[in-house]
């Protein structure tokens, strides 16, 4: 699931005390060793990460399938996530939760996080283990969960219109509403339990699941508990990933104009696909990916945000798939009076000239340092540490901790970074949506 999100706004933000309280239990600084669990049954992977600074423990159960793996209808992986979570709760918990369950369906993975105090580890592992059992829920409850998923989908669609624009751009890029694109809203009437239970049967198999235990734990005791709870999981066959073979026409340059009353401002959505055709696997490109995208983000940020105050906000996302396919999406909101046409021309020129000035050794050094600082910062918060741990693990790779990430960044050569940057900026398939706000 390697991806990287960079909101290209100034890092100063306005808080009005209304967005909820930040909950952080954290401390800095110690290196985080990652211990593979040897006796893990049929699981794809199991790891223990002792973090003394946090007086808590977290169990992340990562199903290596997500929204990209949706059969028709889109939203099936999401519905399955809901059903499995509530079934696990009903099976294991005898009273209401003291700490909320956090479960999310991402593009290529579904992640369940159960958190608690260190002495609760066994219960947390049992809750995680129960996610793999066929969901057992009262019929009416299971059926009506479809309505809950619909409510959630409508809610997200309204609150984050960027999701809708991104979906539109990706459908145009891949020429399909399936796989890496999706058809979530249009498919809502077709969501059904049969597809969800089949999805669970096919994808929630031990060979398609990684478990990561992190927190204030003794690694041997935690490993023994993982073995106790997951050691009996059977050998299984992981599901296929047909969407990895679905690639857009390299010559595609799709542009769509729309008018909408769903946006606060005129908005430009851009998507680009890059095929690293000489690589079958992205693992060895990890360091280059993160340093190179920092350089590209910085140059784009400079051109679109710092040099031109007509771009109100610039948001960039990178998704680097397991098979080394790269997808970049860019969302920019425009200041009043700045036309979509001019913004589009400006963006095209920016992308064309982005590498006109050669990348310097000093520039790579700065990018590397920023990545290191970001990783050090992540160690101060459990949620950021979890993000690091699940980022690569969600592609089936061993997890990175912030300290291991820093080692990899420092081991990446300048030439590897340059090669990656040059490849990303070669002409390839793109799709653009120019969205005009109307009342």
């Amino acid at each position: 699931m390697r991806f990287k999100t960079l909101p290209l706004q100034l890092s100063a933000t306005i808080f009005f005390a209304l967005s909820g309280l930040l909950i952080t239990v954290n401390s800095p600084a110690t290196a985080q060793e990652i211990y593979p669990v040897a006796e893990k049954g049929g699981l794809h992977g199991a790891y223990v990460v002792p973090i003394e600074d946090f007086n808590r423990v977290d169990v992340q159960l990562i199903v290596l399938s997500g929204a990209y793996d949706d059969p028709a209808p889109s939203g099936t992986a999401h519905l399955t996530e809901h059903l499995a979570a509530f079934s696990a709760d009903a099976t294991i918990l005898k009273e209401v939760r003291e700490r909320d369950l956090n479960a999310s369906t991402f593009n290529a993975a579904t992640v369940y996080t159960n958190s608690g105090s260190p002495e609760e580890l066994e219960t947390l592992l049992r809750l995680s283990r129960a996610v793999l059992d066929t969901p057992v829920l009262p019929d009416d409850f299971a059926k009506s969960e479809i309505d809950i998923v619909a409510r959630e989908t409508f809610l997200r669609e309204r609150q984050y219109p960027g999701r809708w624009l991104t979906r539109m751009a990706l459908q145009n890029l891949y020429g399909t509403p399936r796989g890496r694109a999706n058809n979530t809203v249009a498919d809502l009437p077709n969501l059904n339990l049969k597809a969800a239970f089949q999805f669970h049967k096919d994808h929630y198999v031990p060979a398609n699941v990684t478990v990561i235990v992190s927190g204030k734990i003794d690694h041997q005791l935690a490993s023994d508990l993982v073995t106790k709870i997951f050691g009996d999981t059977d050998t299984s066959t992981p599901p296929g990933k047909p969407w990895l073979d679905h690639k857009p026409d390299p010559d595609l340059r799709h542009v769509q104009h729309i008018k909408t009353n769903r946006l606060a401002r005129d908005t430009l959505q851009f998507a680009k696909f890059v095929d690293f055709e000489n690589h079958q696997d992205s693992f060895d490109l990890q360091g280059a990916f993160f340093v190179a995208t920092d350089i590209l983000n910085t140059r784009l940020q400079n051109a679109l945000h710092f040099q031109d105050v007509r771009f109100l906000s610039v948001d960039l996302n990178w998704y680097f798939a397991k098979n080394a396919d790269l997808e970049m999406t860019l969302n920019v909101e425009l200041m009043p009076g700045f036309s979509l046409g001019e913004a589009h021309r400006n963006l095209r020129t920016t992308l064309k000239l982005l590498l006109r000035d050669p990348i310097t050794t000093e520039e790579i050094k700065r990018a590397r340092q920023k990545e290191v600082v970001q990783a050090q910062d992540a160690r101060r918060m459990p949620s950021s540490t979890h993000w690091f741990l699940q980022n690569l693990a969600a592609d089936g790779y061993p997890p990175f901790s912030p300290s291991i990430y820093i080692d990899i960044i420092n081991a990446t050569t300048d030439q590897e970074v340059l090669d990656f940057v040059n490849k990303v900026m070669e002409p390839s398939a793109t799709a653009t949506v120019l969205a005009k706000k109307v009342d």
Partner: protein
Amino acid sequence: MMRAYIQHAAALLVAALCLLNAPQVRAELIAANSETRIAYLTPLRNGLSALTLVWPMEDVTEKRADALAAGLLSVTSGGTASRSPFEIHEYRKLNGIRQSIATTRTHLLFTISAPNEVFLETLVHLENLLMQPTYSKGWFDRNLQLMHTTPSTLTRNPGDVLHEINSFLDYNSEEASPAQFGPEFRFGQPSQAVLRSDDDVVKRRVSKLLAKLPRHAVNLRVTLPKWLEVMLGRDRFTYDLPSGTIHFQDPTSSEMLILLINAATFDNEEHIVGANLLANHIGANQSAEMFLKLRQEMRASYDPTSQFVMTDKNTAMIMLSATVAADRWPQIYASINDIYSSVRSGDVSIPRLDKQHQTLSRSFSDDAYHNPVWTARQYLYEYPDGASGQISLPIFTALEAASTKNIIANASSYLPPLDDYLLILIGGGPTPSADLKANGYCPLPPNTPLKHCLQQLRTEGN
């Protein structure tokens, strides 16, 4: 007539002060008229140090508050004599520096944090930002645009509704003049500073920084007698929301956001903690009543929730919300009523409220040691004019001492009656019944901020 005369005289005094300052600095200087009072709070526990600078911001309009925040954002990001905006941005990223701007009802806050090992250097950086800002008009205009909240009728996000309500409560709704604010601001000596570091070198450097910041040329602290403030209308900031119903009807929508909100004033911290725990029991998380009943039993909503947001020492907003299928909203609204009334009548399990107590205590502790902005707010609620001697925050003591049994017994005095809540409906479905219109009703036109109806209901209520 007397009131008009005094207002006129006060306006002349303000104008005279402005004229005195005008030749010395072209930009508007935001600064205190007295020495900065520095509070040293317990260091953070995550390897970071932080400094919050506080400028008073009383009796301002929303437009003025937005301009001040945009000005502060511009000063701290828009370039200096030696660094471009891009170079400043890069510098922050290379060193792990974060900064944020926040407001309370009476203060504008700027917080900068960085790893301990670079914090001293960060203070030098901050000094350069404050002393040598060179931002452009375009830079300010964009920041001002960022301050404009997307109308909550567009996003239908409870947080955005809260934001609009908060602005209505916090700022003077009367535009004194059509004046344009900004773009040129400078931020001089703050009235207060809150430091989260126990490094003596850092403490000395903070004092040095504060001493360098400019003050107003006329060192005059104007404190008006209470009767004059009343005559000038400065007592119009009542912390009070009207009751009644605001309805934005969108016949195309399959969803309806139901939102109940009250701006509550409490006698003391014990009552605040009691109301906070009861509100959390109603809807703050997966063990709360709204989640268990509206989502798990009725299968009616994905996001039923409550929020309790402290806004000052004795005030808070209590909000209950759920997004539901448009045609079912009256039924779900009735259920929210039942849940609230039941909790307010004291029908609460002690073990479940104990869990909420543990969760809230954990949250307070985490924020106190890791979130400098949250802590600075709590400090300012207790010490709006600065502290001397030992600093203590009674809200923490009250939380620690809270007895869930007593809270349940006093639930009806801690939580306001439901009739005192304002109901906001945004979306599709049937129009509200006559009963829901009885306390006041305002249909909100399209593309109109909530304050249109808030003002109308307040006027009708008066």
